[in-house]
């Protein structure tokens, strides 16, 4: 009897079983970490930004040869594109086209209306440009990593835009690297206005699908093709920045096609909007 009990104890205590039990304990701990949402604590955020900086530095050094070749090839392609754009510009002759005159007359009308309504001017803001160093936009938790350094003075919640529309906002900043939360991230929430009637709603990221706008009271008045822009509510994003167009409407669920395609961009703009507001 005692012999069999000893054998059983020896079986549990042999090295292989101990490692197995240790692995199970670590697995349970990982699951608890995942369920407990540890990443929302300040410690986790600091750890995340520091480790990302270090790993970026290492990968940057290792990838330098290929980056040099890549930038050389890219410079040649950019030069070719500049020549093509110059040719197109000459052909179109923008200053003589009716669209240019329409834009100028519209701006003049808006300025006159603002003066008639005695509207206070929106705060001005400048921007900094930052290079994209890593792109996780195709993952469900869509983020990108951008270069940052002390001279660029990035801060959390800085709006990020491309050449034509808004992309997201800065979610964490470190000495070398900053992370931008994209609009398609499932945790992204953006107050928007739809169409020239400025119907208000909240745009919610859907991961790899187009984001949707919810909580719009006048959803029946919205049509496919209406422009979606930022409303300025919340104080993070300035108003009237283009987000996209209404792609489809399914009852109260309005799907928006974003105007910017992050996969085509190498640099983004970061707006000093919040900084200017704090100074007023």
């Amino acid at each position: 009897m005692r012999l069999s009990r000893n054998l059983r104890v020896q079986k549990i205590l042999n090295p292989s079983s101990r490692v197995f039990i240790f692995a199970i304990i670590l697995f349970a701990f990982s699951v608890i970490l995942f369920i407990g949402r540890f990443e929302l604590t300040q410690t986790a955020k600091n750890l995340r930004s520091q480790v990302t900086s270090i790993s970026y530095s290492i990968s940057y050094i290792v990838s330098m040869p290929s980056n040099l070749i890549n930038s050389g090839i890219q410079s040649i392609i950019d030069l070719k594109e500049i020549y093509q754009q110059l040719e197109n510009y000459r052909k179109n002759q923008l200053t003589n086209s009716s669209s240019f005159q329409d834009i100028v007359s519209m701006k003049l009308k808006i300025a006159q209306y603002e003066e008639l309504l005695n509207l206070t001017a929106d705060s001005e803001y400048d921007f900094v440009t930052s290079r994209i160093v890593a792109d996780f936009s195709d993952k469900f938790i869509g983020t990108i990593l951008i270069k940052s350094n002390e001279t660029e003075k990035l801060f959390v919640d800085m709006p990020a835009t491309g050449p034509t529309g808004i992309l997201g906002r800065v979610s964490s900043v470190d000495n070398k690297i900053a992370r931008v939360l994209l609009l398609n991230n499932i945790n992204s929430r953006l107050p928007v206005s739809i169409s020239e009637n400025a119907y208000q709603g909240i745009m919610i990221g859907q991961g790899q699908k187009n984001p949707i706008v919810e909580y719009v009271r006048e959803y029946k008045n919205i049509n496919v093709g209406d422009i979606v822009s930022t409303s300025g509510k919340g104080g993070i994003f300035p108003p009237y920045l283009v987000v996209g167009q209404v792609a489809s409407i399914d009852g109260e669920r309005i799907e928006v096609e974003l105007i910017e395609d992050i996969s085509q961009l190498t640099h983004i703009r970061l707006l000093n909007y919040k900084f200017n507001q704090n100074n007023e």
Partner: protein
Amino acid sequence: MIDLKIGNLLIYLILFFTTSSNLVFSSTYFDLTLISCLIIYVLRWNEANWFICIILFMLGIYNDILISTPFGYTSSLFLFFYLIDRVGNFFSIPSNTNIKFIIFSLFVLILFSINYFTIYFIYSTSMPFFVNLASYMAVILLYYPLNFIIGSIQNKYVRVK
């Protein structure tokens, strides 16, 4: 004691490299996290080496930090596939049969289902079905080639105690 033999160090380095490649390589159809899980599953580990568990846990946390997935997600995936491999060894499932492949495929598909339904019920949205399934199917298709490569390397150069 910590096992720091060259063979094991190389394995840790390969896993670290695969995880770090998330920073420079991003594709909808190839998920490097799942490929790392496959590597962990096909490798023949030293059963008495407890340091591997800690390495897998730390690599998982590192991967979560890089991609900004919730902490614990990747480490639980890595340890899960490691444990499945250990259970298979406990039941003496030979590595040169299709049973290991079937078990792996089954668990990968279960993982996909869990991800899909968790996102559906918690975030009230759904993943694009076929696009995301493609990355899981790609890992299943990579099983035999990777198993062959890693098995050849380990048979030739590594003596497992």
